[in-house]
């Protein structure tokens, strides 16, 4: 085939569509429209509810009353609901608890998981098959709710934040993903570091971890989302209402339609709409996740597949 060079090819940008192979049919307008419509509807089904929640949380009582409930088009924008919720009181405290548990828990989970994953990633090391079996087996059975509950209670963890962290601190799946990634790092690199006198801890910290930023970001997000979204352990092991994390407070406010402690009066008399308060709590619960996950998104595929279905 003789190539006819008439124009220098433009360097394709990051978002440029890749050139079509010659054998591929051009998509017809009807097909394109149908595809676009389905994709648009799928995305709207996710975005529309979120939009309504956000807009209602920013609406004044008047706007909410006029709309007869949830607001679809923002008219009066106000931050009163957030100001009230964040000016101390039940929701502020719950948010602080959630943030604290998420930070401490994620740090702890990552430390334990990364160490374990590296320890298991050097093939041929003593006992690594046994340890792997012990971990893998837990993916097939669970001890059951009642015995776990009795154990946590016997350990004296009830009414302590440790009960929100320790029982679900590590996910074997996440460890396997990390291990799969670590195993892909070239052995020569690790050997050369060893010749230079580095021990296993230093190799992990200085060589393996910097090379694994993508998967570390993904797993950190998984753990953080796990802690942020958790409510069941709190409902099981905490009795003190003041210790409850945000999700549990959200159950009371949104599902059981209770007014937040200290705000009941403001809702009855003042500007504040109870609905806006509920929506504001929901926004507070979804915001960190919605902001963080797109940044990590492009690593999802790689992270999910490196270790996913390997023993």
């Amino acid at each position, binding site marked *: 085939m003789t190539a006819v060079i008439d124009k220098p090819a433009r360097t394709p940008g990051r978002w440029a569509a890749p050139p079509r192979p010659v054998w591929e049919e051009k998509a017809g307008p009807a097909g394109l429209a149908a595809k676009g419509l389905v994709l648009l509807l799928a995305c709207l089904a996710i975005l529309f509810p979120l939009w309504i929640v956000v807009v209602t949380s920013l609406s004044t009582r008047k706007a909410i009353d006029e709309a007869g409930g949830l607001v679809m088009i923002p008219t009066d924008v106000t931050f009163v609901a957030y100001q009230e919720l964040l000016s101390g009181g039940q929701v502020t405290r719950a948010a602080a608890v959630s943030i604290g548990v998420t930070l401490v828990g994620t740090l702890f989970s990552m430390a334990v998981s990364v160490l374990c994953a590296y320890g298991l990633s050097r093939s041929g090391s003593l006992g690594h098959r046994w340890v792997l079996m012990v971990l893998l087996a837990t993916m097939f059975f669970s001890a*059951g*709710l009642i015995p776990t509950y009795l154990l946590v209670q016997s350990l004296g963890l009830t009414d302590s934040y440790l009960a929100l962290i320790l029982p679900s601190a590590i996910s074997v799946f996440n460890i396997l993903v990390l291990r799969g990634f670590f195993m892909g790092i070239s052995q020569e690199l690790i050997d050369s570091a060893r010749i230079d006198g580095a021990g296993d801890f230093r190799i992990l910290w200085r060589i393996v971890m910097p090379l694994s930023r993508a998967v570390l970001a993904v797993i950190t997000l998984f753990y953080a989302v796990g802690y942020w979204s958790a409510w069941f352990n709190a409902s099981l092991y905490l009795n003190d209402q003041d210790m409850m994390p945000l999700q549990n407070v959200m159950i009371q406010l949104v599902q059981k339609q209770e007014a937040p402690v200290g705000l009941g009066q403001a809702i009855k008399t003042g500007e504040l709409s109870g609905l806006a308060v509920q929506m504001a709590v929901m926004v507070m619960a979804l915001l960190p996740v919605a902001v963080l996950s797109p940044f990590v998104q492009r690593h999802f595929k790689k992270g999910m597949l490196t270790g996913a279905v390997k023993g």
Partner: protein
Amino acid sequence: MSHSTVPRSRAEAEATEKTPAAPDGATGTGKKPPAGKLSLRLRFRRDRALLLMTLPAVLLVLLFNYVPILGNVVAFQNYDPYISDNGIVSILHSPWVGLENFQRIFEDSAFWNAVQNTLVLFFLQLVLYFPIPILLALLINSVVRPRVRAISQAILYLPHFFSWVLVVAVFQQLLGGAGLLSTLLRDHGYDGLSVMTDPDTFKFLVTAQSVWKDAGWGIIVFLAALASVSPDLYEAAAMDGANRWRRMWHVTLPALRPVIALLLVLRVGDALTVGFEQILLQRDAVGPGAAEVLDTFVWWNGVRNQDFGFAAAAGLVKGVISLGLVLIANKVAHLMGEQGVYKK
């Protein structure tokens, strides 16, 4: 297993130096370690840092995944939580009742109701939920523009990271008795909706919530499988005169087959575990008749009614059947020539 020639540490270096030189009997054992294999003591010295690293995780797993298995003995007891404020002490002093708890379970109509709900929900999810990620992945894969792909993927992945509390709350605001759709209908002279509290449609509601939350996330695996298909196959098929539909049928779908089979098998293995948190959050609004599944049955009887022996027995039955299902499912995966969760 690629073993490097570089010694892992000084211990190994010493060992590899000494082993060939050490005469038989000089070490007192009279046994020469086979070439390339180190004695246990030396391997321990070499790998002690690695062992130390796995220790915290192993301890956590032993404590929170293995120790509670022993706690299942309360299923054979008339467990009395008030004997002591420590659960383990109470277990030691509670009277044994043999299989009485299991008898009670099998005679309890509420238990069979929970079994039925669990299975119905599982089949609904299999039929209505399972194909959606596959279809979505095919759709996204056929989109050529990278920007459209990236944005729609980011949006579709998003709900996976929301908590069940949030998802249920969103559904309540949209479809609940005082929700958006209900208000709109009432404004136009129709009856309001009661989807969130209607026992007849509850299982469809739960399935819809699962689709909303996780169907987008489910496409990742399929997209990865699609990305690994060689473009040459498509070209060859096109040369043979296959149009785009034929290519999807004869190239794309066969490429997805192993993933579909694996996920299907895994789902069947997990059949008795359907949406515990999700259903627990809505159980009170709908009533146990329609909403109770095996997991919530255990929670209700154990945690709420403090009938620990009874609930643990139900949990044990569920756990044993689940374990069996997972093992069978994995076996089936192997028979079908797929890898399954663990290797053979």
